[in-house]
């Protein structure tokens, strides 16, 4: 049997961080990092590279996007960003790695579906798709 896939989590809000960690563990993945800042996420991931990153965008020290961009310079690790404020298309065009953005609030099943999609390789690095929860959120 294969070893469980390794997932790094970053979220500055403790309630949400706990939720992400518990849900991801319940899905059968191995949570290798539970960071509260973008810098912590980057440091942990450089020490022990994960198979997938699930991160908030707005965090102290380093944003989720900045951390992801630094990671992608080493390895094209798939990243799921969860955000209260969808980033501008300009921020996303400079991404440089496999990325999916989910708008908060995200339910456990929605997160699971997004992670499967990323890990099954359905999202190619050049894919710009941003599945958002509600049509009215389109700019």
């Amino acid at each position, binding site marked *: 049997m294969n070893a469980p896939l390794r997932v790094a989590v970053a979220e500055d*809000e403790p309630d949400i961080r706990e*939720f*992400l960690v*518990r849900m991801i563990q319940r899905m059968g993945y191995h949570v290798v990092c539970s960071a509260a800042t973008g810098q912590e996420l980057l440091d942990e991931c450089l020490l022990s590279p994960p198979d997938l990153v699930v991160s908030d965008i707005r965090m102290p020290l380093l944003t989720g996007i900045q951390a992801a961009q630094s990671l992608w310079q080493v390895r094209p690790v798939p990243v799921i960003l*969860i955000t*209260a404020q969808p980033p501008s298309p300009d921020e996303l065009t400079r991404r440089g790695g496999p990325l999916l953005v989910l708008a908060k*609030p995200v339910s*456990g099943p929605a997160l699971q579906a997004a992670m499967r999609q990323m890990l099954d390789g359905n999202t190619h690095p050049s894919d710009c798709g941003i599945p958002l929860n509600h049509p*009215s959120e389109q700019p």
Partner: protein
Amino acid sequence: MQLADLIAQYPALQACVGWTEADHERIALAAAYLVPHLPQIVDDFYATLQRYPQTARVLSGGPEQIARLRQTLTQWLEQLLRGPYDPAYVTRRALVGRRHAELGLELVYTSAAMGRLRTTMTHTLLEHWQGNLPLRGQAIAALNRRIDLDLAVMSAMYEAEHAEREKAALRSHLEDALHQEKTFSESLLAHAQAIVLVVDRQGRILRYNACLQRLAGLPQEQVRGQDWLATFVAEPDRPHLRTLMATALCPPQRSPDEQQTTATLVTADGRPRTIRWVATPLHDATGQPAALLLVGHDVTDLLTAQQEALQAQRLATIGQVAAGLAHEARNALQRIQACAEMLELEVSDRPEALDYVRRIEQAQSHLHQLFDEVRGYAAPIKLDRTLTRLASIWREAWELLAPQRAGREVRLVEHDALGEVQLNVDHFRLVQVFRNILENALAACRDPVEIQIVCQPAQWGARRAVQVAVRDNGPGIPPDVRPRVFEPFFTTKSKGTGLGMAIAQRLIEAHGGRIEVGSHTPGAEILVTLPWDAGP
């Protein structure tokens, strides 16, 4: 001075220069020496006139004129030497003075010319007199008195005529100025983009300008003398205008605010216009207010623009607040979601507790939707237009409502007269509009539901348009609800934010179209009108 006055005063004038009947005889004596030399005297006179430009200009008629004038002067001199110096003589002299004034010959030249004749005649006498020398002196003195009298008469009539002419010129100038002023004011009144109305103290119409005639569609002759308020002003606004009139007519006048008021004008085309009226009293010769001048500006478009600007500003503010709130709320909503889902795991073996958790999740989901809709309503709209068949739009909206239709007996009937015609619209936004309309219809109707969509070409003013009517077989929209259908947060449903139709209205208006409640019965009807050539 009139000629008659001059003739009446003539004896006094003669006395004044010392003229006596003896002078007449002395002149007769002198005439014997002068008459043979008249041709030379006349030659000298015209030679002198031609020598100076100021006098030569009256001789512009050439040799013919000079020949004629020579004859006149010769006759004139003969009359002077012969007399009799009666009223007919005075009249002839007077007419010469008037004629000079008519010709515009200045009086100074008349005096100079008379001086010239006086000199040449005196010289002639001095040179050719034969006989008694004291008599010669008396004859020269008599001739001088005669010339003085002639000059006095000519000058008097010259001045009288000149004054008359100046008066006439001034009158003509004033009449011209008055005429110009009248033309100017009439053109001002005719072309003014403001209403100008004059009424008497009782408010009876005296006159008004073309602007009011155009708006009200009433010729002046038809309504002159009638009460202006009853003729032009909507009933509820009449009391304010009565107050305005009373304030204007009763000094001392109050603040400028009290001298103006807005009121609705009854117009020819039935569309009410809002007019801002200013009243000013018009005083008669005794200083009493005799009439009222009412000037009205049509502020309908201004007020509409102000209201629209205010509404846009309000929406922009709401938009900013809502966007900020929605962002902050997302984190809070995520925490509720997180904790509810974790709690769900903890109490998975307790059905009642699980039910509560699901209710929390439903409440959270409702709050989430509310924030999204507020933001959708208030955020600026940028349309992404593509050529689209309208039928594809309402069909997609209908598909999106599959969950709401599940388990119900519903039927959608289409009457699409547009066929393959495509409009340049924002597909996604219009799906939102029809989704909201259809969702309301589904919520309002009991099974079996039948919703009809009637799509046909229409005329909107001078523009070609497309009208889509969405009709249902529900209870219809009560009259008191009709005006509030598009009001934000207005809802008759137990669930819902009350923003669906307000958002639909914003989106249709962004397309340059119109959405309204139709009059088709039974059931409710919503009419969406879109310009055929919508958008750039």
